[in-house]
C-alpha cells in the first residue's frame, strides 16, 4: 500500500478497491509498531481518524468523492487543530487545545484528508535537528543514531519510514527542505503567501510558509493544489490564482535552462558533490541546458537570517505570558514574576537564545546596525535571485552540505547548527518557492537536490522534479524498518 502514490491511492479509494478505514487502520498500526523507536508523533488522533475515515467511506459509497477523499495525512504540530492538542513542540503549549482549525487544516479536511496525528518538531520550529523538541528527539529512519533534520523532523521521518503517505510542514529557513533531504523524501516550500499562515503558530512572520512532504513530486503537486489560495484571515496571503499543479507538473517537458550557483558548491562534502554531478548529468539528458551562475550574497544569508528570524520571533513569542493560555508558573508573587517565571519554565534553551538575540537586535541603539542592515542584505539577496531568473528558468544545487549528522553532534554548537541551513535560508529571505527531492545515496544515507524557482513558479519546479523522478528511482528507496524493532 505504501508504495502507491497519492494519485494511485485516490483511484483505489474511488473505485472502492480499498476503503479509507482500511487505509487509516493500516497506517495507525504501523505507527504503533514502529514509532516508539522513531518518536515522530507527539499526538496520535486515532479516534478522530477512524471516525472521519468511516464518514468518508459513507460519502464515497454515495458517490461523493472529493480530490483527496480518504487519504491519511500527518499534520505538523505547529498547525492549530480544533479540539486537538497543539503543542508546537514546547512545554509552553503542552496543554493547549486549539479552539479553531488553521486554514491549511481546514482546506485539507475539506479536500477529504484524514488526520492521523500531530508530528514532532523542534520547539516553535527553531532548530535543524529536531533535538530542541520538549517531546524528545526524533530519529532518522535511515540510521537511528542520526537526526532527521528539522524543524519539521517528525513529518519527514514518518513519511520516510512509511508511517504516513504524506505530511504537512513549515519552512522558515529550510525546515521542510533540509529534513526532506536528510530522510530521502520530497519536501516542497511554496512561495511566501501561496498558502495561508492563519492558525500556523508564528515564528518569523515575514519568512514562515507552510508546505508538504510526500514521496513524489506529483504527490506534492496534488497536495499543494488543495492547500493554496488567498485567505481573508491572512492579509499576507496572495491573490495569485491557483493552477492545477498536478496537471501542470505532468505536462510535456520541453527542456529548461538551469543555473547552478557556484556558491552552492563551496564547502560541500566531496561525495555529495559527486552525487550532485550525476544528477546534473541526468537533467542534461532531457534537454536541460546547464549554466554556472553566481549568487554572491547568498553566503550572507545565514547572517541576515540570524537577525531577521530572532527579531521577529522575539516579537511573536511575547504573547506567551502565562495569562490567557499556555504554561503558567505555580510560584509567582506579582505580575512581572508571573511573566518571567512562566516564560522561563515554558521555553527551552534554543527558544530563549533566539528571543535574547532578537531582543538585542531590536533594542535601542542596535536597531539600525542589525535589523535594518539585515533587511538591506535581504534586498541584495533578492535582487541577485531576480537577476538570475532573467537568465535561467530554475536554479539547482544540493539541499544540504552533507548527509544527516549524528544526534548530539551539533546540539551544543549553535553556529554549526545554523550553518546546516546555508543552502536553504536565502530562498526564505527572498520569498521564493523551492523543493528538495532525493538525488542519491552516500553510504546508505540520502541526499537531496534543491530546485528553486521564481515567485509563483511552483509548476515549473515541480515539472523538473517530476521529470527527474521519471528517470531515477532514488525517491522509491526506503529505509529498512525491520532493522529497528
Amino acid at each position, binding site marked *: 500500500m505504501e508504495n502507491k502514490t497519492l494519485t494511485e491511492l485516490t483511484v483505489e479509494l474511488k473505485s472502492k478497491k480499498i476503503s479509507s478505514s482500511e487505509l487509516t487502520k493500516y497506517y495507525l498500526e504501523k505507527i504503533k509498531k514502529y514509532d516508539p523507536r522513531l518518536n515522530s508523533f507527539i499526538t496520535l488522533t486515532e479516534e478522530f481518524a477512524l471516525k472521519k475515515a468511516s464518514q468518508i467511506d459513507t460519502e464515497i459509497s454515495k458517490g461523493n468523492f472529493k480530490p483527496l477523499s480518504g487519504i491519511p495525512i500527518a499534520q505538523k504540530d505547529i498547525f492549530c487543530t480544533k479540539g486537538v492538542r497543539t503543542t508546537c513542540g514546547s512545554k509552553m503549549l503542552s496543554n493547549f487545545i486549539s479552539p479553531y482549525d488553521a486554514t491549511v487544516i481546514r482546506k485539507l479536511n475539506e479536500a477529504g484528508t484524514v488526520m492521523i496525528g500531530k508530528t514532532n518538531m523542534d520547539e516553535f520550529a527553531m532548530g535543524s535537528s529536531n533535538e530542541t523538541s520538549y517531546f524528545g528527539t526524533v530519529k532518522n529512519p535511515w540510521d537511528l543514531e542520526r537526526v532527521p533534520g528539522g524543524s519539521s523532523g517528525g513529518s519527514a521521518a514518518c513519511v520516510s519510514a512509511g508511517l504516513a503517505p504524506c505530511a504537512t510542514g513549515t519552512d522558515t529557513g529550510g525546515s521542510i527542505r533540509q529534513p526532506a533531504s536528510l530522510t530521502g523524501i520530497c519536501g516542497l516550500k511554496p512561495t511566501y503567501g501561496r498558502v495561508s499562515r492563519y492558525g500556523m503558530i508564528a515564528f518569523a512572520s515575514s519568512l514562515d510558509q507552510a508546505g508538504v512532504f510526500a514521496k513524489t513530486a506529483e504527490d506534492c503537486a496534488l497536495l499543494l493544489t488543495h492547500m493554496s489560495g488567498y485567505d481573508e484571515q491572512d492579509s499576507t496571503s496572495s491573490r495569485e490564482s491557483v493552477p492545477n499543479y498536478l496537471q501542470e507538473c505532468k505536462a510535456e517537458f520541453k527542456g529548461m535552462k538551469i543555473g547552478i550557483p557556484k556558491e552552492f558548491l563551496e564547502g560541500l562534502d566531496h561525495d555529495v558533490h559527486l552525487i550532485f554531478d550525476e544528477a546534473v548529468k541526468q537533467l542534461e539528458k532531457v534537454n536541460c541546458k546547464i549554466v554556472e551562475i553566481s549568487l554572491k550574497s547568498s553566503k550572507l544569508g545565514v547572517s541576515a537570517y540570524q*537577525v531577521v528570524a530572532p527579531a521577529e520571533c522575539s516579537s511573536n513569542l511575547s504573547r506567551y505570558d502565562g*495569562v490567557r493560555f499556555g504554561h503558567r508558573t505555580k510560584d509567582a508573587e506579582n505580575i512581572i514574576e508571573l511573566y518571567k517565571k512562566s516564560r522561563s519554565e515554558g521555553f527551552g534553551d534554543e527558544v530563549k*537564545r533566539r528571543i535574547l538575540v532578537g531582543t538585542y537586535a531590536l533594542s535601542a541603539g542596535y536597531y539600525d546596525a542589525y535589523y535594518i542592515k539585515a533587511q538591506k542584505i535581504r534586498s541584495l539577496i533578492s535582487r541577485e535571485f531576480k537577476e538570475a531568473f532573467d537568465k535561467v528558468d530554475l536554479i539547482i544545487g544540493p539541499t544540504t552540505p552533507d548527509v544527516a549528522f549524528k544526534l548530539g553532534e551539533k546540539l551544543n554548537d549553535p*553556529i554549526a547548527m545554523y550553518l546546516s541551513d546555508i543552502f536553504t535560508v536565502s530562498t526564505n529571505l527572498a520569498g521564493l518557492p523551492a523543493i528538495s527531492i532525493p538525488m542519491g545515496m552516500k553510504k546508505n544515507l540520502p541526499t537531496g537536490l534543491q530546485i528553486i524557482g521564481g515567485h509563483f513558479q511552483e509548476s515549473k519546479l515541480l515539472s523538473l522534479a517530476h521529470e527527474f523522478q521519471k528517470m531515477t528511482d532514488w525517491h522509491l528507496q526506503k529505509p529498512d524498518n525491520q532493522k529497528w524493532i
Partner: protein
Amino acid sequence: MDKETVSKIANLANIELDDSKVNEVVNNLEKILKLVDEMNSVDTSNLNPMSHPLNLKQELRDDIVLEPNQRELFQENSPNSHDGYYIVPKIID
C-alpha cells in the same frame, strides 16, 4: 557582549536566566553576533531595507464584526479565569 548586557536584554524579554547558565549564554550570543557581523563585509548604503518578500501593500477591509464572540471557548485554555476575567496576582498595592 557581557553578563551585564545579557541580564539587561533578558530583563527586557521577561526571561530569567539561571546563574549557572549565564556564562554559556554570553559565550553563545557572542558567537552568534560574530556570525551576524559578517553582514558588514558588504556596502549596503544604496539599498532599501526589505521587510516583505512580495512588496505587498497592507490590505484593508471595512470595519465590521465578522466573528462571533467566543470568550468562554477561548478562556477554556486559560490557566486561571473566572466569570470572563483572567485571574492574575495583585497588580496594584
